[in-house]
């Protein structure tokens, strides 16, 4: 009992740190529940300039990047009910929307997406799982920052859409295993809930 309690406290402190920097999931919750425009405005102020920067680094002109960033943020609103905070942080989720928009706009390819799980995001995802995903993504961020420059640049080039680097493998020692296990658990739970 005693041990559990102290571990719990330790976890709380770490969670507060992670939360201050990356917890945008509450904003999405407010958009889903109350169509909260103020929450969206804050989300927009933080993410739209990053999405625009990401698109320009991927080769979009400023005009196209502006247009696409607005489109991405509109999609964030329209898809907010599909966001699952136990499987991705808001940054990760917005990255996937921006990536998809980039493929549509710059490559003009069709972009098949996997079908959604039979059971959507849980209405009340376990808080501990949401926290853990944020923490582990934060650790991943720290690990990416700590990579030697050449290696980090290679990853950036791959993710920012430089096609000549499509062959990159993620064997960089990044802490992806724990994130994968968490996502796997979340998927199992959703499948189980459906039965």
């Amino acid at each position, binding site marked *: 009992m005693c041990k559990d309690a102290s571990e719990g406290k330790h976890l709380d402190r770490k969670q507060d740190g992670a939360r201050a920097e*990356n917890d945008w999931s509450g904003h999405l919750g407010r958009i889903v529940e109350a169509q909260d425009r103020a929450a*969206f*405005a804050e989300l*927009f*102020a933080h993410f*739209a*300039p*990053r999405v*625009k*920067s990401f698109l320009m680094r991927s080769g979009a002109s400023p005009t196209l990047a502006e247009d696409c960033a*607005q489109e991405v*943020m*509109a*999609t964030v*609103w*329209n*898809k907010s*009910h599909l966001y699952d905070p136990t*499987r*991705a*942080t808001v*940054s*990760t989720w*917005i*990255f*996937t929307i*921006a990536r*998809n928009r980039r493929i549509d706009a710059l490559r*003009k*390819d*069709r*972009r*098949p*997406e*996997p*079908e*959604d799980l*039979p059971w*959507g995001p849980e209405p009340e995802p376990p808080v501990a799982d949401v926290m853990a995903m944020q923490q582990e*993504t934060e650790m991943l*961020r720290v690990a*990416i*920052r700590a990579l030697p420059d050449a290696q980090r640049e290679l*990853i*950036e080039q*791959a*993710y*920012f*859409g430089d096609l000549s*680097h*499509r*062959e*990159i*493998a*993620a064997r960089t020692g990044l802490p*992806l295993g724990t*994130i*994968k296990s968490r996502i*796997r658990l979340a*998927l199992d739970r959703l499948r189980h809930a459906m039965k």
Partner: protein
Amino acid sequence: MTETIKHHLTDTLLTAYAAGNLPEAFNLMVATHLSLCDSCRAQAEALEAVGGCLLAECGTEAMAADALEATFARISTGTAVPARRRNACSVLPQPLRDYVGGDVSAIRWKPVGMGVRQAILPTSSAASARLLFIPAGAAVPDHGHRGVELTMVLQGAFSDEVDRFTRGDVEVADEELEHMPVADPGEDCICLAVTDAPLRFNSWIPRLVQPFLRI
């Protein structure tokens, strides 16, 4: 269901998928496999977290002064995006149904000889995708590969020199592998095959058909 899959996508492929760098045909293969395989789906989503971290750190570019207002205008004309839920009894996962326009009955097969049929799917020319129909117990004649070819079973099963492949299993064949897949006797086998060598009809089809003609 998903635990029966033994042959998965490679990390290289999943990374390129997460980064958004795959040609359309390979994207279709990954999306179809992820629809059936939670293990690869979790790996792909973990790799997407790398993208999330990079986005968080990639700097900012100022948006136009009226950008927020303009975005609200887009929102008011848009609609909520419905989830793409699976249809439990279909053979083709949703990404493939989008290309075929329905389930197996909607596939427009073209015979390529000895009961084997194929249907080329419309993708960008950087890589090509096709569905293959192999009658129960039949063999696809030995064929080499230009570039990388991925074959995923959707119905039935096939075996070759490498192993036996059932629904969801992906066989990765490079130029070295010369193999002769044989469908299980119990059920017709349907596969999705993609290759990064564009299909050259004039050379590829004779190559597939020739061995039959010699029989």
